[in-house]
């Protein structure tokens, strides 16, 4: 009750940017997904912070965060399945080497 909202928001922004860096700068496809997870978590922090600081009686924030959990889980599952499938085919998980969908 003594933490200003901005602290949470800035923290979320920072985690989001770190996650963005991870997506853009990591070679391994799984590492990219790790970055995506960071970004999703940052989003969740934002959602829950706003829920608490706006109107805790209105559960929209938390509901949204729950849905985000579900979506993140689904996305990770499918993504990793894809990566494993690609690994089986191309023997590589380096994102730069998976470039068959080029011109």
């Amino acid at each position, binding site marked *: 009750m003594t*933490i200003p909202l901005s602290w949470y928001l800035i923290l979320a922004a920072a985690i989001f940017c770190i996650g963005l860096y991870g997506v*853009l700068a990591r070679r*391994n496809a799984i590492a990219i997904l790790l970055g995506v997870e960071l970004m999703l978590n940052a989003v969740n922090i934002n959602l829950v912070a706003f829920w*608490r600081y706006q109107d*805790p009686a209105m559960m929209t924030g938390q509901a949204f*965060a729950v*849905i985000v959990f579900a979506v993140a889980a689904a996305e990770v599952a*499918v993504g990793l399945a894809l990566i494993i*499938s690609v690994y089986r085919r191309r023997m590589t998980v380096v994102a730069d080497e998976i470039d068959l969908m080029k011109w």
Partner: protein
Amino acid sequence: MTAEQIVFLLTAGAILACAVMVVASGKLLHSALWLVAVLFGVAVLYAILQAGFLAVVQVVVYIGAIAILFIFAVMLTRRELRDHGPQTRAAWWLPATLGVLILAGLVFLILGMPAVNRLPAALPEGFDGVRVLGTTLVSPDAFVLPFEVASILLLAALVGAIYLAGSGRKA
């Protein structure tokens, strides 16, 4: 500086440090483990925000399922349990600059928001967060539809993931 703030700061610092380690670690498995640490920290944050249910769900789902899944994937996508080559792209400075810029922009925007430094109102007496959340999720004039769709999404993802990663399948 109240105790709450100190706790928050420590947690935030830990989260940030672990997040940096996630993206900067030279070993992928370490990255995955650092993610686990980050997720823990986020759970603590939820607790501080008095969203206890979410904190528990975070630990169970994120750490217990997703992070484990990551670690499995890491293990399944290498012939030997060693990392090959650099883990960061050659032109990493560009995303770094980008990140810094976006962070700066976001911070700027945040600070420009009206009443951004406000403190939260106290929770009402006898506020049962879990009960209210559950009711919201299943009541027709609240969020039952997204809830159900999300469950179908999970089903589709389940089926898809099994199909995609199924062994013996010709890719």
